[in-house]
């Protein structure tokens, strides 16, 4: 019996490191599956939430964030940069002009081939949408928390920044050292640029790492994606050919 409603909550698989498979799946109505290598743990939702709270407390005790409270960081951002965190040596607050920042924009070159582009703030989908260019943003594929679409997310943020200012509750736009690329806070930057102009000087949080694994290698990523996409097409066409 297979559950059609399996949602992968997190996946950190590796071919090279000790644990080849680390995956958390929500099998809706059934259980949460925690795969660690060849072992699978079945947890109820409550057990999983307890487990998750325990992990969060452990991360707080480890003080991974140079004295900053882990709760000020977005959960999805933490998940995305988890692989680099062991090399995090310092966090600083720095001044920067919005127009000096670069933003990662995902472009669908073909229907299912995604390539990264680096854009200025006034070329991000969110900024363009806020300034009346409605073409791309609603369909722009990005991570949103459950129950929120692109428009609602941006509207909530616009209201929050108008009411609370920036930064609110210690939540800064985040960069990694060595590159002026926004790693978390693209929408906040777009809203700030929309409200106050692209020459606004803002404070950002800079993560300093003691290695360079965090560098965004756009061309390498795009090349690997293209190769994977081609291989996938070959594999699926081969499957069809062999079935016929």
């Amino acid at each position, binding site marked *: *019996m297979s559950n059609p409603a399996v949602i992968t909550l997190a996946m950190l698989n590796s071919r090279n490191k000790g644990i080849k498979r680390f995956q958390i799946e929500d099998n809706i109505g059934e259980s949460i599956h925690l795969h660690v290598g060849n072992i699978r743990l079945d947890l109820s*939702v409550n057990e999983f939430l307890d487990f998750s709270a325990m992990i969060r407390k452990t991360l707080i005790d480890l003080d991974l964030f140079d004295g900053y409270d882990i709760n000020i960081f977005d959960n999805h951002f933490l998940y995305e940069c988890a692989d680099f965190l062991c090399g995090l040596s310092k966090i600083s607050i720095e001044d920067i002009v919005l127009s000096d920042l670069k933003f990662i924009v995902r472009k669908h070159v073909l229907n299912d081939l995604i390539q990264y582009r680096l854009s200025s703030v006034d070329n991000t989908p969110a900024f363009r949408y806020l300034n009346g260019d409605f073409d791309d943003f609603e369909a722009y594929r990005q991570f949103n928390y459950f129950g929120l679409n692109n428009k609602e997310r941006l509207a909530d943020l616009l209201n929050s920044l108008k009411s609370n200012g920036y930064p609110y509750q210690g939540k800064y736009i985040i960069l990694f050292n060595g590159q002026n690329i926004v790693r978390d806070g693209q929408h906040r930057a777009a809203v700030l640029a929309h409200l106050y102009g692209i020459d606004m000087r803002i404070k950002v949080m800079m993560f300093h790492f003691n290695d360079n694994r965090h560098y965004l290698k756009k061309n390498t990523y795009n090349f690997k994606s293209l190769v994977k996409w081609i291989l996938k097409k070959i594999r699926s066409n081969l499957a069809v050919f062999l079935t016929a």
Partner: protein
Amino acid sequence: MSYVNSNSIIDIFNQLNTSCFEYILIRNINNELPGRLRIGKDIDLLIHYSERSELINFLKTNGFKSLRHPHQQDRFLYGTKIFEFFVNKDNVLLDLNYQLSCRSLNAGEWIPLDRKIQSSAWKNKVLNKMDGFTYYSLGMEDEFVALVTRSIFDKKEFQKGYVERIDTLIKLIDVNEVIEKFQLIFFKFSSVLIRMLKERQYKMILNNYLSFSEY
């Protein structure tokens, strides 16, 4: 609006009925068959994979030719067989399904419904006779399960034609049998789901399912 010639549809079903092949018409939403099937719309047939080669020969002998299926590059998991399209000169478009399946919420891969549901489909198939149109369909409980499953996983909404048929069937089905089958797909959400269907809360079902946490 152009419709497929109903005589051609009746004719191919008559040929299937007198052949040695078992088949089931999986759904006939809005009673489109035989007289109101728009050209380009397909007819979903459930077929035994073990009879595939013979059936394809049968179809080719009867003027059908193979056509590229729009889902043929999708991922098919757990032994799900790829769907196949066959069309004849009268635009009768057959979509051959070798098992009852649905899309996974994970990445839209196709996966088969539980083996017990597959067996039940064949065991409980029903012969229908309607104004000269004779065909085998799923039993009511299996059709109900298939419609709800397709709405949630494939369509991600309850469309009008589906709602009308579900509303009709819910008064006729053995609810306990349906719950038993739902449990093979929706697990602990099954009883919530049947209650929501009875209360016609169609617009809320998908959200409630995705945010369900009582397990």
